[in-house]
Structures are given as C-alpha cells and as structure tokens.
C-alpha cells in the first residue's frame, strides 16, 4: 500500500503488442494533440504522447521486429519535477502520477531535458486543427498553446470523471472503470490500467508476473509503467 489515495499503474504486455498504432491514434484524438507534419518531426519537434519504438533483431531472413509502446513513465522519482522553476510539474499526492499544469507552465523546457524517456513534448507553435478536426476536440482537455510543455497524463480526465461518478454513487472506483484511451483502443488488450493499491486489481496481479520489468530501471526513477517482456511471439 503506497502513500497515495490511488496508485495508478499501467501494464504493457509486449507479447501482445503487434505494433498496430491504434493506441497512438486514440491518444492523439483523446488528448487534442496536433499533427505537426513530416518537416517538424524531422527537426525533432514531433508531438506524440505515445509512440511505438520499433527494433529489428537478427539478420534477414531470420529477422524479427520488436515493439515497445512508450509514453510518460509517471516516475515515482521523476527527474522532471525538481527542475521546474515554477512548480508547473509536480507529483500528485492523490493519484501518484506526475501532473503538468499547463496554465502554470512558462516553457523553460528544463523538464524535457531531464527526462530520460523523451516523453515530454514542447509546443513550438500554436497548434493547428484545420476544419473539420476542430469539431472533434475533447472539451475535457485544454488545447495547449505555443510555449507550453505537455505529455501523457494517464488520461487524467478519465480518472477525474470516474472519481466523480463513483462519489455521486457513494462507492469507490471499480477495477477496470478507468481505462486510458490507448488501452481502450488496443485490439489485443496489451495495455492494462488500474490501481496498484487494490491487491485484487488486474494490474496488481500482472505486476507480480515474472516477465515484468521497467524501462531504464538502473536510473532509479521507479516508473509506474510496467512492461511484460516479449517472448517468441513477435516473429514476423
């Protein structure tokens, strides 16, 4: 049991990930992330809270593709937090995740420089949502302006909504009630989300799996994203 009210945790089963990118698209739509185009991506100014890292293993014809969906790892010891001069990024005592307060952010980009996972994205320009894309903006998520840092929030707007519903119905949040957009879109259920404080939750059971590991564990960041090692099934 951790010190948080909820300890939101994500499990990514690499044996199930086919690299289809459905999660990437779902994330883009849910969180009002603009599409910046090839030129910007080439300059390293892409906007993606969630991306699929692809690795090739072996030599043709015995070659195999491996995929790792990568998003903000919601580190317990987050390197981004102490370097923010205005406290725009901090650790939530309620949800145990790393929060970015957009209206507080002044765009120093120290946090992104300190992030070992390259999970933080900076708005170099005002985002463009040409017609009819503006019609599908999610009202629960602010459209970030130029000069603001942003990143995966574990779909905190969905956590907020679930908390309010549970409270109105006088119960606690059920396991599986909060599902981030990526997990909802995943056709193979490779992304599971839930509360590590609840010993019976799906994530608590999966976290004990012997395939489990965290990215760059040696840095001591203690991510809240746990990957389950992929075996032989990713053969192409």
């Amino acid at each position: 049991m951790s010190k948080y009210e909820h300890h939101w945790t994500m499990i990514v089963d690499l044996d199930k990930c086919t690299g289809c990118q459905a999660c990437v698209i779902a994330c883009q739509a849910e969180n009002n992330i603009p599409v910046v185009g090839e030129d910007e991506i080439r300059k390293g100014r892409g906007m993606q809270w969630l991306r699929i890292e692809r690795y090739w293993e072996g030599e043709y014809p015995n070659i195999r593709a491996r995929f790792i969906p990568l998003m903000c790892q919601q580190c317990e010891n987050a390197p981004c937090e102490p370097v923010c001069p205005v406290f725009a990024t901090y650790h939530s005592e309620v949800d145990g995740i790393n929060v970015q307060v957009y209206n507080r952010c002044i765009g120093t980009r120290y946090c992104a420089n300190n992030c070992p996972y390259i999970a933080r994205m900076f708005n170099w320009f005002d985002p463009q949502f040409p017609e009819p894309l503006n019609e599908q903006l999610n009202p629960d998520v602010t459209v970030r302006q130029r000069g603001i840092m942003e990143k995966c929030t574990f779909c905190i707007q969905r956590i907020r909504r679930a908390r309010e519903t549970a409270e109105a119905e006088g119960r606690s949040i059920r396991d599986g009630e909060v599902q981030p957009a990526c997990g909802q879109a995943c056709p193979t259920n490779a992304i599971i989300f839930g509360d590590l404080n609840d010993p019976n939750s799906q994530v608590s059971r999966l976290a004990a799996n012997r395939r489990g590991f965290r990215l760059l564990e040696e840095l001591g960041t203690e991510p809240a994203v746990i990957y389950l090692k992929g075996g032989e099934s990713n053969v192409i």
Partner: protein
Amino acid sequence: MSETRDRRLLLWSGAVLTIVVIITGLALVQIEPEDETKINQTAVTLPFSHEVHTQKAEIDCLFCHSSALRAPQATLPSLNKCMICHSSITVEDDNARQNIEQLKQAYENGWRVQWPDVYRQPDFVYFSHRAHVNNGVSCQKCHGDVQNMTLVEKVVDMDMGFCLDCHQEQPEADIPRLIDCATCHK
C-alpha cells in the same frame, strides 16, 4: 450528311438540357437549406425572470437546470421546457402576457434563443456542478441570490481564491484532493 447533322443536333440539345436540369436541381437544393439555416440562426433574446419563477411560481432550480445533479454542466432549459407550462398558463398582467407572447412566437417559429453568458470559467479550468450539488453546496453560495434576480447578473467573482477558500474548509481527509492542481486544471 443531313442524318449526321440531325444526330449532332439531337446530341447537343440533349447535353444542354441535361446541364440545365442539373443546374436548376443544384440551385433548388442550395436555396432550400440556406434559407432554413438563416431562420434558425436568428438568435433572439427573450424576457425572463428568476424572481417570478422561483418565488411566485415556486419552481425548483433543478427543474430548469436539470443536469446540475448529474453532470458537470447545469445546462439551460430549452423552449420545449418553457412550453410545458406556458402552453396552458394564462396571466392577468398585460406586460407579462406580452412577454409570454414573445416566448410563444420564438417557440412556434423555431428561433434559436441566445441567453447571455454570465458565469464562464477559462478553458483550462475544470468545474463540475455534480460534485458540489451532491455534496450540499447551495447554488446561492456561488451564484448569489438568483431568486431575487430577473435575468442573472454576475455578483460573485469566482477566481481561484474563491474556490480554494471553501475547499480548505472541507473535512481534513478530503483537502489534499480538493487543493490538488489537477482537480481543477485540465
């Protein structure tokens, strides 16, 4: 020779006729919806009194702002809702009758009503009526004495300090959650 000319003539007149038919068709289709949207977009304002409805007629706030218990937005009533009562109520007062005539006219013509925007939070703020109304925070705490107003006027400045002052007075166990930036900022 003349046979080919006849055929050419036939072809040409056929083509011209088809084009004329298509253009008229398009024009008709174009004109129809354009006029309709024009009517629907004439936004009108109507007279309305909170005092008459909540004190004289003793209607509950939640009858008209019916989502306040269930959703983030309280919502404004549609004209259909006004007509639940006003299709049958008769009033003595001339002025009141005239005001109600305006309502009926707007309803019957399907006009869109544009009520003034009174309380609006900036885009980066998350606010929810459901969380407050279910926890016994009265409408008047935040909106003032609406029951004495005609159209609602802004009497409370709901800045961040206003929200936090009350959140700090809640039971100790709830305070960390209620003052967490992510609770109100999205």
